């Protein structure tokens, strides 16, 4: 304590946490897409009305927005905003970032930064149709995950999914819904239909394992 009774102390700013979600797995070059940006304070300060900025892989600002008053559903207080962005014209995986900059607030907050990938893809010429079938009873599997990296989708109620991809070599996975992953390595050079027969990962009862 100083002789003039002045009290000095260091104040650590609160952490600012930025969350980015709903980024599409692939976006055609130059096309627009929507993402959600959320902001949270480490000390639970309300974050509605905070500014969030998106910068691209070259550091150029792509969007600036303000978080809304309603938190994202099922969260304790993650205020968010949805913004529209435009994919780069060059194909590839680009690393962008969302920033919640230091604003003039009563309580100091450190800047929050989160990086995320934006995969710009060329126009896809081949239509791949995947039919997911339960191997045992030969019925369609709805809601199965379909992945032909980097392309992703899910099967519809008829167990069918369609994905447009450029020509090339792919590894197909069809899985989820308690099925063991179906894997198929393939060369796609034209439209194709692939039948994926899925085996249930039967939930083991204790009887299956022990006596």
């Amino acid at each position, binding site marked *: 304590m100083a002789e003039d009774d002045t009290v000095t102390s260091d104040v650590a700013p609160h952490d600012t*946490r930025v969350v980015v979600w709903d980024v599409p797995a692939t976006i055609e070059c130059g096309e627009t897409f929507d993402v959600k940006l959320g902001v949270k304070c*480490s000390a639970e300060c309300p974050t509605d009305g905070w500014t969030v900025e998106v910068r691209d892989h070259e550091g150029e600002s792509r969007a600036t927005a303000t978080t809304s008053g309603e938190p994202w559903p099922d969260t*304790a207080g*993650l205020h968010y905003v949805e913004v529209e962005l435009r994919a780069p014209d060059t194909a590839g995986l680009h690393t962008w970032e969302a920033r919640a900059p230091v604003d003039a607030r009563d309580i100091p907050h450190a800047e929050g930064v989160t990086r995320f990938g934006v995969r710009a893809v060329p126009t896809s010429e081949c239509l791949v149709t995947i039919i997911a079938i339960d191997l045992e009873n030969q019925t369609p599997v709805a809601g199965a995950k379909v992945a032909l990296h980097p392309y992703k989708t899910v099967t519809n109620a008829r167990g069918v999914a369609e994905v447009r991809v450029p020509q090339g070599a792919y590894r197909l996975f069809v899985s*989820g819904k308690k099925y063991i*992953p179906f894997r198929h390595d393939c060369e796609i050079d034209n439209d194709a239909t692939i039948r994926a027969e899925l085996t249930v990962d039967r939930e*083991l009862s204790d009887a299956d394992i022990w*006596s």
Partner: protein
Amino acid sequence: MARKGDPSIDPPIQNEQGLNRRDFVKTGVAAGLAPSALLGSNEAHAQISETQQTAWDYEADVVIAGGGCAGLTAAIRARDLGASVLVIDQNFDLGGRMLHSAGRMSLGGGDPVQQRDLNGESDREGLVTVDPVENPEELDDSVELLFTDITDWSVVDPKGQSPYRYNERELARAWAESCPATRQFLIDNYVRFSRVSGTHGGGGLSRARLATCFLMLGDKTDIKAGTITAEDAGVADPERSSAFAPLRMNNASRSVGPNAVSNGAALSRSLEFSAREKGVEFMLHRRFDEIVRNEPFAGRVRGIRATYAPRQHPRTGERLQSLWQNGNIDERRETVNIRARQAVILASGGHAGNPEVRSMFYPALREPAFPTSGRALLGPGGQDASALIAGLRVGANLAGMQQNLSYFTTFHISTRLGTRDAYTGMMPGHPTFDFRGSAGLNVGNAGFEEFIAVNQVGKRFFNEVRLPRRPGPSAYPGDGGAPGRGLAHTPRDWRNCRKEWVREMYNYDHGLDAALALNEGSEPPDYFSGPLWAVFDRDAVDRNEWELRYPYVSDNGYFFKADTIEELAETIVARNEFQRGPLRYLTETVATWNGYVEAGADPEFEREEEAPMSPIVTPPFYALSIMVIWHDSYGGLRVNGRQQVVDMQGHVIPGLYAGGEAVGGFNKHGLGKGHVHGYIAGTHAVEEPSS
């Protein structure tokens, strides 16, 4: 050296008048009470004998520590042969692990159920209405073939271990010879068996020997009639267990007929009913502590000392009550001494619930975060090595301790997340559900592609998709475990273990070992590996329609939800009892993982080879506990073929028997071992001279 099994030449019983042990209180024994031969506590406590120095509060011809599969069987067998029997158990109810088992019992040697199926017959009540599952030649068994199977040096399992090679041969012979009689004994005590189908771990590769215990759904629960209500069976409501059956009973229509349900409750409750009906007496909430022997390492075993250890409801504080009470002795004194006129039988289980003991086989499993199976049901005294510890104090030898490592799934990673008691599917309705707090979310093997698994510092440690996979057992029909499947298996054939074959069939991932590995949060002296966490996002929940609600998960320190990954890490540290430090790498790990997903390659663990990878980006974020479970024990006290405990000089300890998981030297999994041990022990205990 005394000849084993001949009481007439066992070391003579010493006169306890000469004892001057500090911990023996000077008092006496009351004897000759009939017909129950059990003393009431007050009368016994008051009686003093000049010839004894132990205050005997109770006495019976045969005293049994543990009311599970070995203990109950031994109790009924001894009672059938005319003995008075007192069983003590640390739990509030009987059954031990048997009660939460699947009720599958692999015996054989031409046992009555094999014979029944071989002849295409039904059971004597006509409840089994489906045709035999196995062909007659698969059931054509003998004691000789069974003995050959369970001592087969040549079998090496898909984990590269030898399940039969190290079995104690005298013990195995006696077990094989007693299987047919034990099966009949169980049938005579209300146990109903399904059709035989296959065998299971440690039961041999040559014939089908396994049948499952069942009851029939009916209007009332009636053991004599073989019926159970849907409510008691747990099949009326998928989220409701019963006090009768802690686990929902399984549909047994394919191996019995319509309306049949099976699991360990069908076995355990039937035996318990019979034991109570026949006059076996029980003292529950009573932990077995000590064996009373004439001298610390000599003389006859005289009885046991046991401590009151009430199990109280975690919310109400009420003492839990057993399902049935007839035959129960309500004794609440802190310590009682119980005299055994003829024999003490140790059947209080193994050591899988005692981290200090199990650590001698796998030091990393001194980690107390990981319990044994059925922790809520059994309580803190379950599988606590009580028999092993007490046996060592009176000079007993050990056997088969290394066999803890030679059963293929002694310890494993559970697919049930979000509960510490991750072994069973017990639901609310059983009195012990609140000890687990949540039933957990069983995501199956396939569910492991939906998350990353991290250790106590928040780092991934293995390919998640491979974590729950388990090798198959070496049991009939031998899928993958032997070059010859089913009847084509040739016992004692060197081709079963030649290295070319072992290389071909080896099928074990060491994810569990990575889970238990040293990490940056491991600190001396124990270097605990700490808890494990499955981390995922809301998209994973939506994709899989996981029900993250009570009773599957609850706010009990094993399930967390947060708005950000950073908050998730902070919450786990604050509210999990075994999280000893920060998950300092979790945020970085998740960011790295999301980068792998975008790139389509996981250079650390090669997930892209086996399953699609999903990012962890959509709030809220979740962490559910992943549990390593040490299920059961294969090492324990050394016994001979009469189940008599043997000391380190090879001598029988007079008056002391043991069975089930308290015993070592037999790498046989589960009920088949315990019931036959109990049958043998009960048979020979009553042949001991009465003192």
